[in-house]
């Protein structure tokens, strides 16, 4: 058993991958708590897809280097977060329609750009589904610093985010800058997505945002506990997912997401049975 656990750890790429998976899991679970409570799952999914053109520019400009990918993705994510926020506020178009338009349009642009490169399918798959085992130490420090900053801001603005999410009109009567805080939250979701890009990729991102937080939501009715539980489930999923990936040769991103989903299923099923029995 011990050998089963220790064997993968002799590879530096596994250790880096585990560190990245846990860090990404914690950040996206904590931010994801608000995504779940505010019903922003579709927004999160769309935002993840809409960073693809940014990734593409970084890919074309940097010729395979990692840093430009990160920065361009960050710019793209923040622009689309603000774009979606602005369109749905200022026109009669409903928010989900605005999201749909920007989401599909930018995703198509990203694919079009990446497809201009020969042999693009491999790289495209990498962006879409992530590869946490390819994380380098430079990536780790970016994940650590931006992830840490995101968590810090969520804690600093804890009571403000709580009020604007629970009762936005009341928040406005307290003269809180509701719109600004809304945008800040959108930007934090955007940063989280970029930080998690390498772990799970664009297509599976929404699972990291909503699944651990939703699992925690089933178990507690206190927001701080919900955040802690979500972070725990996400970390466990990252570690277990990577071991599954190592031993069964499953793509790492999908393994992590599958473990998240399995935990949700177990908790949901367990609670359903428990309620039946206790009634």
């Amino acid at each position: 058993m011990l050998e089963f656990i220790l064997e993968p750890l002799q590879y530096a790429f596994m250790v880096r991958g585990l560190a990245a998976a846990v860090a990404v899991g914690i950040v996206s679970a904590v931010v994801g708590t608000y995504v779940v409570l505010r019903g922003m799952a579709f927004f999160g999914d769309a935002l993840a897809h809409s960073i693809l053109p940014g990734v593409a520019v970084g890919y074309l400009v940097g010729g395979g280097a990692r840093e430009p990918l990160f920065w361009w993705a960050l710019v793209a994510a923040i622009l689309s977060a603000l774009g979606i926020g602005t369109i749905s506020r200022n026109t009669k178009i409903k928010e989900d329609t605005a999201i749909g338009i920007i989401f599909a349009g930018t995703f198509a642009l990203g694919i079009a750009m990446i497809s201009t490169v020969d042999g693009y399918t491999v790289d495209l798959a990498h962006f879409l589904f992530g590869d946490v085992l390819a994380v380098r130490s430079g990536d780790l420090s970016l994940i650590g610093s931006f992830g840490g900053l995101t968590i810090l801001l969520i804690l600093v603005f804890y009571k403000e985010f709580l009020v604007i999410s629970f009762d936005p009109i009341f928040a406005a009567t307290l003269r809180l800058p509701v719109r600004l805080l809304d945008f800040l939250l959108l930007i934090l979701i955007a940063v989280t997505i970029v930080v998690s890009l390498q772990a799970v990729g664009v297509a599976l991102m929404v699972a990291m945002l909503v699944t651990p937080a939703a699992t925690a939501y089933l178990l507690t009715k206190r927001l701080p506990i919900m955040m802690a539980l979500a972070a725990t489930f996400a970390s466990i999923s990252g570690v277990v997912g990577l071991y599954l990936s190592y031993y069964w040769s499953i793509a790492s991103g999908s393994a992590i997401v599958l473990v998240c989903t399995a935990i949700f299923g177990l908790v949901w099923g367990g609670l359903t049975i428990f309620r039946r029995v206790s009634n």
Partner: protein
Amino acid sequence: MSIFQELKKTTRHLSRGQVHDHDPNAPILRAENVSVHYESGNALEDISFELIPGERIAIVGPNGAGKSTLIKVVAGVQTPSSGKIQIFGHHPDGHICIAYVPQRTQVDWNFPVTVADVVMMGRVGKMGLFRNPKASDWQIVQKSLEVVSMGRLAKRQIDELSGGQQQRMFIARALAQEAELILMDEPMTGLDVTSQDEIFKILDQLSKENVTVLISLHDLKMASERFDRVILLNKELLAIGLAEDALHPDNLLKAYGGTLQLLPTDKGMLAFDDTCCEGEHDHA
């Protein structure tokens, strides 16, 4: 409001200098020729009135009369298309003495917070950014809950409350906010008579402490029996004053038209509207 303006507001919020001094000679609330226009039509037209400190005043009118819109304009969360609202002589934007109580149906009761968490939200404006609740804030929260007889329910989850308790929790939040003007949107809808009485008892107490309460209602009988003054609204302000004057059958006919039922009783002519209740559908 532009992001730039919001930023300026935030800077003020950070320095905690945004709260206007109250002009003691100005009325607690003055509405001057307030109109709200939507693309689909007018919601409010040329509304003017003043409130008296400590009074309890009901806004009545048929569904779609603009009751919720008027409350949002007074709260300063919706800007009127023309006209202005003044609170103690200043734009409502600079005041944190106005408490807003939402319609119960607008609240997500599954939100993971306790009763005390919700009441603590009333302190957020006073605390300012980057500050955590202090022991004194928690004491205020507990005291506010005791005023509404919910001292023991502080740690309850909000989804375990009855309708009356939900409403009283929001009143406690207004108290924790140290509000001088409380705005309530249809607070009595769906409550049984006992719960309504409990709330009126609390409102009586607030009145004595000079807290002004503006409430939208659909129950005309309640408006006429339990409020100091009544505003009769149907996009325009049709009447304001003592219930017996404001709810004169001629006025009611103007407001409700065909949906009104008049009923002669020993208390005089009573009028009822038969439009139903679950929240009016104003444009948010």
